[in-house]
C-alpha cells in the first residue's frame, strides 16, 4: 500500500464527507440524534441521580440502529439512482478504495456526532465525581458498534437503488445482528448454539467494552465484522450486476 493509494482514498473520503455537509439532511440527522439521546438520558438521570453514563451507553445502540442506516442509505443507492456511480467507477480508482472511502466518510461523520455528545460527560463532571474509565470505554465501544452498523448498512445500500429500502433493510439487519446474542433470545436455544449466537451478536461485545473492559477478542470481533461486510460490498461493486 503506497502513498498514492492512500491519497486516492483520502480524496474520495473528502468528497464523501463534503457531500454529507452539503446536504441539509446531515444536520437534521445530527440534530435529532443529539436531542433524542440527551432527552432520553436526562429524563431518567435526575430520578436516579447517579453521575455515570451507563444508561446513556445502553441507549446508544438503539439510537444507532436508526442513525447508522440513515447515514449509509444514500451512499450507494443514490450514486446508482443518479448514475454517478458510472462516473465514479470509471475513474482510475479500485473498487476497494471507493468502498473504504465511503465507509470512512460515514464513520467520521458518526464520530463527529458522538463528539457533540461531549456535553453529557462535561455536565456530569460538574455534578459529581465521575469514573472516566467506563466513559472512555463507552465511547470507544460505541464507535466500534457504530462502525459495524455502518459497514452493514453500506453493504445493503449497494444492493438497491432505493434509499428508503436501504434504510429499512439496514435497520432490520442491524437490529438482528445486535440482538442475536441477547440473553432474552438465548433462553430457548440449545447451549452450543447459544454460545455461537452470543459470540456473533454485536450487542454482547458492546457491553464488555462499554463497561470499560477492552478485550482484544472484542476488538478483533468488531474489526472482522466490519471487514467482512466491506469485502462483500466490494464484491457487489465488482460485479456491477445492475443495469
Amino acid at each position, binding site marked *: 500500500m503506497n502513498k498514492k493509494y492512500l491519497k*486516492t482514498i483520502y480524496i474520495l473520503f*473528502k468528497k464523501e464527507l463534503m457531500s454529507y455537509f452539503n446536504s441539509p439532511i446531515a444536520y437534521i440527522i445530527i440534530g435529532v440524534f443529539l436531542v433524542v439521546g440527551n432527552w432520553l438520558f436526562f429524563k431518567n438521570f435526575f430520578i436516579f441521580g447517579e453521575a455515570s453514563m451507563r444508561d446513556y451507553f445502553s441507549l446508544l445502540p438503539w439510537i444507532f440502529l436508526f442513525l447508522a442506516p440513515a447515514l449509509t442509505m444514500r451512499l450507494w443507492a443514490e450514486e446508482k439512482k443518479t448514475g454517478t*456511480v*458510472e*462516473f465514479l*467507477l*470509471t*475513474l*482510475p480508482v479500485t473498487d476497494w478504495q471507493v468502498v473504504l472511502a465511503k465507509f470512512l466518510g460515514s464513520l467520521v461523520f458518526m464520530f463527529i456526532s458522538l463528539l457533540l455528545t461531549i456535553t453529557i460527560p462535561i455536565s456530569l463532571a460538574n455534578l459529581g465525581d465521575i469514573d472516566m474509565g467506563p466513559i472512555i470505554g463507552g465511547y470507544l465501544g460505541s464507535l466500534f458498534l457504530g462502525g459495524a452498523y455502518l459497514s452493514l448498512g453500506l453493504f445493503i445500500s449497494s444492493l438497491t437503488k432505493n434509499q428508503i429500502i436501504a434504510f429499512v433493510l439496514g435497520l432490520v439487519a442491524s437490529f438482528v445482528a445486535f440482538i442475536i446474542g441477547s440473553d432474552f433470545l438465548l433462553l430457548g436455544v440449545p447451549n452450543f448454539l447459544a454460545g455461537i449466537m452470543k459470540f456473533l451478536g454485536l450487542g454482547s461485545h458492546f457491553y464488555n467494552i462499554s463497561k470499560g473492559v477492552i478485550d482484544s477478542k472484542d476488538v478483533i470481533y468488531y474489526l472482522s465484522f466490519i471487514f467482512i461486510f466491506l469485502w462483500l460490498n466490494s464484491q457487489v461493486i465488482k460485479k456491477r450486476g445492475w443495469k
Partner: protein
Amino acid sequence: MIEIKNLTKKFGNNTILDSISFSVKKGEILGFLGPNGAGKTTTMKIITSFWLPTGGDIEVDGKSVLHNSILTRSKIGYLPETVPLYEDMRVFEYLKFIAEIRGIEKDDIKKRIREVIEDCGLKQVVKKPIEELSKGYRQRVGLAQAIMHEPDILILDEPTTGLDPNQIVEIRDLIKKLGKEKTVIFSTHILSEVSATCDRAIIINKGKIASEGTPEEITRKASGQEILYIKIKGSREAVLQKLERLENVEKVEEKDKESENVYGYNVYPKIGVDLREYLSMTVMQSGWSILEFNRKSVTLEDVFRELTK
C-alpha cells in the same frame, strides 16, 4: 490506439454485442452510429471499464482494459450519456475533486481548473450548485470533467442530445478542437453530426458492425451516391442505349412506365460528377422530350435507415 477484439456482451440470453472488432487510430475522431439499443453505449461502458465484457477484450495503447484497468482508465476521459454529476456540489468544488482524483499535481490544480473553465465556457457558473445548471451547462461541466487530466482518449456518449441548435454547434466545435490532439470516439444518432465532425464512422446495428469508413465511403458503399430521375418521351430501347453509353454514367435503369414511349429512368452518375446539364442536352439533341427531371441525393440518413432496418 484502441483495439477492440471480438467484443461480446450478453445479459442472460440477450446478446447486446456480438463479437465486434474495430480499431481507432491516434488522433482520429470516430463517429459511432446506430439506433437506440444497438450496443453503442455498451461498447463505451466496456472501453471505460464500467462493465466487463462477456467475451473478447479491448486494448488501449496495447494494454488490456481487463488486466490493466487502472492504467487504461487514467488515459481516458469519459462523458456518459446521462451526464451524471454530483448535484449537491458547486461547479468549482466538483472540478477541484476531479483534478485531485485525476492526480494533477497540487501546484498545477488551480491553473488547470482555470484552463478547463476557459475551454468549456463555464466562467459564469463556477459558483453555482450543479443542480441549478441548465442542460447546456451540465453538458459542458461533463466535458470539463472528461478533459481535466488531458487524456489521450475521449469517449463521449451522445454529447449533443437534448441541446438546442446553438449549443450543439458549440459542443461540436469543442469536440473538433479537442480532436486535433486527441483520439475521440463519440456516439450519436444525428447523422449530419458525423459528416460534420468525424474522420471515420462506424454504424452498428443489433450488436454487429453494419458499415465502416469515412462518411463518404459509407454513403458510397451503400448505394450510388446520387440518382437522377428523368422521364423521357421516346423509344425505350433507343433511350436506354443512348444513356448507357454516355460518359460518366455508371448505370441506367428503367424505373416506371407512364404510357407507350413514356418511361421514367434512374440514372446513376459517377461520384462527384454533375451530369444534369449534359444529360438534358443529350436528350434534347436526340429529339426526345423531357417530361420530368429531378435529382435525389443519397444521404447518410438513407444509408443509416437502409442498414438498420
